[in-house]
Structure formats: C-alpha cells, structure tokens
C-alpha cells in the first residue's frame, strides 16, 4: 500500500498509456468504444482501497452507465515527463528539476515506462517510452536550457505521446513561466486534453496565474501545484506520483448517449461518503 506523502503538491500531468500486460490482467475494450477514467477516491483525505466495479456509479451526460472494469495498481504506468528548459531554468532551479525527475524515475516499478519531452521554443522528445531509466537520466543530465517557453506546444506533444498507447499514462509537466512562443492555442490544447485519456499533473513555479495549466489539469482530472520555489520539487513530484498510484482505472462502454460532443461525467461511490476526483468529462470530435 502506498501512503501518500504529506507536503507540497506537485502537479504532474499523468499520461496513462498501456504497457505490456500479463495475460491474466483484464483487457480493455477498444479505445473507440470504451471510455477509461482514472479515479481517485478518498475519505477524509485518505485513499479508499478495495473497491470493485459494483461500488462505482458513473453518469455520462446524466445517463447511468455500467462499469465494465476496475483496476488498481495492476497496470504499469507510462509516465511522460514534460520539462520546461527555457532560459530561465538555470542554476539551482535546473538542479532541483533534475533531482526531482530522477526521484520519479527511481520510484518507478519494474514494468513502468517513462519518456522525456523537453520544450523551450523547440519541442523535443529526448527519450521515447522505455523501462531503461538510466537512458532517461542521461538525457536529463544533457539538458541545456535556452530560449523561450512553448508550454502550450509542449503540452500538446506530451498529450499526443501519452495518447498513443493503451494503458495508464501520466503527463507530468514542469514550467516556471508563461507561454511565450507556442503556435497552438491554449483552447486547442485543452480540447486535445479533453479528447484524450491523459491525466495531467503540473507544477508551476513562480508564474503568476498559470490559467492554462489550471484549466488543463482540471479538465483531465489531474492537479496543479503552484510553488514559489523549486527547493521542494522532489517531494512535490513524488507526492503527485503517489497520488496517482492510488487511483482506480475504470472502464465503461457508453450507451444511451450521443457519441459526438462534450460528455459531462459524474462518478460516485455507492453506499458511502467519499470524495471522488476524476475528469469532469470528455470530448468526442471538435
């Protein structure tokens, strides 16, 4: 059992993508038909465990749905680290970022995979999804901050990578500023997040009113952590990872609702008072 660590919250965009799963693990319906939700259930701040499919109630645009599958801790994670390497991320800040990223890599389990994407005005995937954390560490060490901040473009790339696989993915975003260089609009990327199954956790260090990250993390059921200093970045990163590991993965096949458009979601736990955190809905089409 993973105990959530107290302290500052680090928001990571968690992109869940499917890893190679053993034969006995339940399989998912095809992406086109099934909707998958990462759900965090807490009671007085403490994660609730041991729930099954029958314990959940899911409403899609107000229409009750039948939960096909619930998984907890069984599916390996695919964690995409999306890091701001613009010119302001230097010195101590860069050191903290590397340290926090290494901590995440050190907390991965055997079958977990990770990828590294960095952005200044250039968005670059420095390491594809891999279980070889040493390779990712090497790319971390090779980071050279320079240039502007294409946060929006970078986030879209992270969502796309995360959305490319089946399974549980986490997109963890770190940025210390506001976007200054992207081509894509915030609205377009937030909509991409709504269409995907990505959960986004984000850390914003020092930026005033990071509204884009706030809206994106809310839209994907993740969390935004706003920090003044990067001194505790390691603890924040690990806290977010721990929080995500407490989530259930629910799957259901929508019925009785129109396919296209926005789907408002409500998820409850039957028969008990509990707080449920998940994405507020999902988008199909434009």
């Amino acid at each position: 059992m993973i105990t959530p660590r107290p302290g500052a919250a680090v928001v990571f965009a968690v992109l869940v993508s499917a890893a190679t799963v053993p034969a006995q693990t339940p399989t998912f319906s095809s992406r086109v038909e099934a909707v998958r939700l990462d759900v965090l259930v807490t009671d007085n701040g403490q994660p609730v465990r041991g729930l099954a499919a029958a314990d959940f109630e899911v409403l899609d645009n107000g229409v009750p749905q039948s939960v096909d599958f619930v998984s907890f801790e069984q599916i390996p994670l695919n964690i995409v680290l999306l890091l701001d390497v613009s010119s302001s991320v230097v010195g101590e800040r860069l050191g903290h970022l590397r340290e926090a990223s290494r901590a995440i890599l050190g907390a991965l389990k055997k079958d977990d995979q990770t990828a590294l994407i960095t952005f200044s005005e250039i968005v670059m995937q420095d390491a594809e999804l891999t279980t070889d954390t040493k390779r990712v560490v090497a790319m971390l060490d090779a980071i050279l901050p320079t240039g502007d901040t294409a946060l929006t473009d970078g986030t879209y790339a992270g969502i796309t990578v995360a959305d490319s696989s089946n399974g549980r993915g986490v997109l963890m975003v770190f940025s210390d500023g506001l976007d200054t260089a992207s081509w894509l609009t915030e609205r377009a990327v937030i909509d991409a997040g709504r269409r995907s199954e990505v959960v986004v956790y984000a850390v914003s260090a020092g930026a005033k009113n990071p509204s884009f990250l706030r809206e994106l993390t809310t839209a994907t059921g993740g969390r935004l952590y706003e920090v003044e200093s990067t001194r505790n970045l390691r603890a924040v990163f690990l806290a977010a990872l721990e929080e995500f590991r407490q989530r259930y993965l629910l799957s259901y096949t929508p019925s009785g609702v129109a396919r296209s458009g926005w789907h408002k979601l409500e998820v409850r736990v039957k028969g008990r008072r509990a707080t449920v955190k998940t994405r507020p809905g999902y988008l199909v089409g434009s």
Partner: protein
Amino acid sequence: MGPEPAHDMSRFEVRRKRASSSRGPQLDHHGASGPEAEREPCDERRRESKSAPRATMVRGASSIVVEEADQANKPVSALRQRLYVRRTSGVVLQGAPDLADAIVEALVEVDPCAVPDFAPQFVACDDLSVARDQEREHTGRLWLKRNLLAAAPQMASCRSKGERAERDGIHEVRDGWDIGGVPRKLVPRGASMTSTAVAAGTLLSLFVALLQVPPSMTQPQTQTLLPTLPPAPIVPHRVTVLREWVAAVQRHVPGEVDAGALVPSIWTADEVVDIWTDAQVFAALLNDPTKNRFVMQPGGRNVNVRPDTLAAMRELALVVRARMPPDLFFKRAALLHTDVVTILQRDEVTPSMPASMLIPQRLVIRTEDGQQLSIQSGSVHWEFARVLLDAVFQPSRDEFVRRWYRATLTHKLAKEELDTPHFEHGLRHLANDAPIQFLLGCLHEAFADPRALAATRNLSLPPRTILAFGSEESELGEARDFFRRALALDPTSAETRLHYGRVLGRLGRHKEAAAELRLALAGTRDPLLTYFAQLFVGAEEEALGRHSEARTAYEEALSLHPRAQAPRLALSQLAHRSGDRASARAALARVLQPPDKRSENDDPWWEYRTLAGRNAAILMGAVQRLVRGDEPP
C-alpha cells in the same frame, strides 16, 4: 623666442625607449636646454619602491619611455578612473602618428590593463565581442590610436614661426593643468598655440597626468624659448561641452565608431542635464542667430541663458552656419546620437540619471522569455535625435526625417524595443506615411504578443512609474486600426495585409481574416511572407471549420519550411480533432524525434514578432548615405 613665463612650468618631454629592463621603459625628466641638449641622455630619477608604480621621464627624440608612477604620486588606479570619465577629443602633434603609436605602445608595455581604460566604450560594449587580455588591449590600442589620428587635422595648423617641430612631437605643458583636467596650454615645441591645440591637447594631458611626475621634478630649466601666450579665457564648462558636441557632430562619420561617436557616449549625468538644454538653445540659434528667448522640451518651459554663455553659443552657431546649413547639422547630429545607441549600444546609463524635470526621464526594462532581467535609466540619445530633427525646416515634408523614422522604428522592432514615445513621435510628423502607420501597427501587435504579455504581467516597477499598455484585445484593436490606415494609404502592401489578417484572426474575425490573408498571399512572391500567410490561412480555415482547406494551407507552409515545427503541430492537432490519433502522431514524428536523429528545428514562426524589422540595417544604411553625400538628400 620669448621670455620664460613667470610661473612655474611643468615641462615634459616624452620619448619612447625600448625597454631594456624588466621594469619597463622609463620617463626621465630633465632640464636640458636647446635642441642639442635634448638629444643627450638625461639624468634619470629612479624611485625607491620597485613594487609600487612610478614614473620618470626622459627627454629624447623619437621615443617615449613610460613607467608607472610611484606611491608619492596619486595612484595609477585613481587616474585611471579619471581617464575613464574624461572626454577624449584626440591629440595630434606634428609627426603625431608615430608619437601616438609610441604612446600607445609605451602604455601597453607598462600596464596593458590600463589601455582598455582609455577605451571604456570598447570594454563596455560586450556586443563588440571584445575579449579579455590581448584582444582588449589590441582594441584599446586601436581606439586610442584612432582618436589620436582623428585629431591630426586640427593640429596640422600648428606651425613653427621659425623652428620646425621635431618629428617626434616634443611638447611642453605649462602650468595650469590639473591631473585629469584639460590643460590650459599645450604648446608644440616651436609652434604657436591655438585654441584648437588647447582643445586637442586633452588626451596628451591625460597621458601626461598618468605619468604623475611630481611637482618637484618640474624645473623651469629649459632655455628653449617659446612664444608668450596670453591667458586663456575662462570658458564655462558647459560651453566647452557644447563645443565638443558640435565638433563631434561635424567630425562623426555616420555609421562609424569614431571619436565623434564616443563624445556623447561618455557624458556624465551633470553634463547631460546641461547639454540637453544647451543643444536646444544652440539649435534655435542655428536657425535664428538673433533669437533671445528659448523654449525647451520637455514641457515647453522658458529658459534664460546667461549673457556670456549665450554670447559664446551665438558665436558658435554663426561659425557652424558658415560651414553648413542648419538642417544638415541637425541631421548629422541626429545620426550621431542614433549611432551612439544603435552601434555603441549606449541606451542605458549607469549610474542612473538624476531625477530632474529638465531632461526626459526614461526607463529601460529588459526582459527575456517573459521575465524581467533589469531596469535602468535610459539615456537621452533618442530624445536628442528627435528634438534635433524637430528643428529641421518642415520635418513632416523632409525626406531625411521620413527615412530616419522609418529606419529607426524598423530598428526598434527588430530589437523588440517597444519604445512607444519614439513611435508616436514619428507618427506626429508622418501620419500620412503608409510605412509609419504599418510600423505603429506592428508595435501594438508586439504588445499583444505572448512574450510581451507575459513580461508585463511580471514587471516590478519603481514607485510612481507607469507603464502604459493595454490588454491583449485593446492592443490588437490598436494594431488593427493602424494596419487599416496603412492599407488605405497603400493597398498594395502584402506585408501590411498579412499582419492585418493575422490580427483580425486573433480578434476572432475569422472570415475577414481569411479573406485578407488570401489577398496577401496573392500579392507576394516573398517566400517568408508566403510561409506566414499559408500558416495563418490554415489557422483561420480551421477556426471556420473548413478542415480540408486548413490542411492544404498547413501543408503548403510545411513545403516551404520542411523543418518547421508550427505546421507539423498544426497538422497533428487537426488530425487529433478528428479522432485520428495515428495521423496526429505521424505528423508530430519529426518534432518528437530524439535529438541524435535530426538536426535542429528551424521555424520562422519564432521570428514573426521581429519580421517587420528584418530590413533595419538596409534602411539605416540608406539614411546614413543621405548625410554622407552618397545619395542626394
């Protein structure tokens, strides 16, 4: 030969001697008389301390021997400090090139670190990539030499009545100068003194001051008779500053780093306060030498000028008017100050300018990636240039003024200098000029750029400081209006239409935007403008739900710049919208490719905010040629 002056004379003769010891060359003072004696070796006075700097002087022909001053004199570092702040109008003596080179070489031999202090502008200008040690030293030497040589013509008029000045320029400095100050009299041996020689003697006097020969070493022993000179008139310092400025304007070659350009770049704060008023008075006198009442900017305040100062200024104005038309002087002066900020990069001043109602107050706030880097007082050179061009006859109709504003606004856009007062001043004169309207539009579009928006959100300003800028939407609205006016004046400008369409799109008027952008596409063959137009057309078609047309436009943009990131992101996002994850990922494949498998991305999109400034150097060169006479005004 006249009688010896009654007052003590500090006489120095310099020659360069090849360093024969580790202590470096030496300057020995001596009191020999007559030319023959000058050639004899002189007694040297050595100082006790070998570790401390010291100086002795030797008289001799064709050589300068320099040694550091000793501790009994003022420390070299203190002089160095003074030298840093002094203006250098150059000193050239007869036979000067050799002497100048010798002085420089001697300085280098004794203390190479001191040479860059003679060239502070080079040291300060990191943009000139002045490296440490040898390169700094070399550049300092070149600078020093250039200054010395630049003043050569002034000294050419110095001729001996009966004696021919020695080739190495043996000179005499009479009593009356102070260390770091301007000598009252600088007399080339055998030459008659002129006021020009006095003014031109600054550098040599500074050099001499560095030698720090103590008073006890000075002996009025020479029997070489020099003409008796009348006492120099006491001229207010501010008039001296004004004269030096006028000389710099006349001497400076637009576009060059020369002695003229360095003059205003090293004004002290007090001198700036004085010259700001004096230059305006002078400009008024240049247009009308009979004027007695003056109105100053900022604020349109009346200024009373002291009669003696006014008389000196009037006299100077008459001299200048005799040499060149006032308008030409104003234009040359404007270019001088333009070069100070654009070439010498002296747009910020340290320490800060004094808070004063007498001079324009400006802050320069530097940001990077939306973060504030620094905030400093701005220099007044742009203001100088503008106020001088305001004095041109009918500036709104003057071709130089038109071109200057076009060039400088373009320059500022290239540098992302969002200097609203400068832009608005240009608009005041040139409201009917299509390029000026276009450039104003680009200014407001730049204020609405994410980088500027992020920076303005994070600014930390001093108390009682207001930075005037609007919201993103209001700035886009301003930009739209300027572009519209520009198009009304010149409908053929594809670049204006490109920006207009882009701004309309950002304001949510997608149908109009798409139409304007397609017109821009049709009106240009420029590959860069075409790339942007296709990219922006794609965005507008996508916003209108016409995804097929959007895809076509993005693919056209990508074909022009295959390594560009923006079109690939756009195509990927378009596929993602339609639910085609595979195509979305495929479109991003090159962007996501690990760095060891591809070269660096190259996307003009990152330079869109400075697109309008890409021809700044060409425009500036054309303005400079107008004044240099390469092109008719």
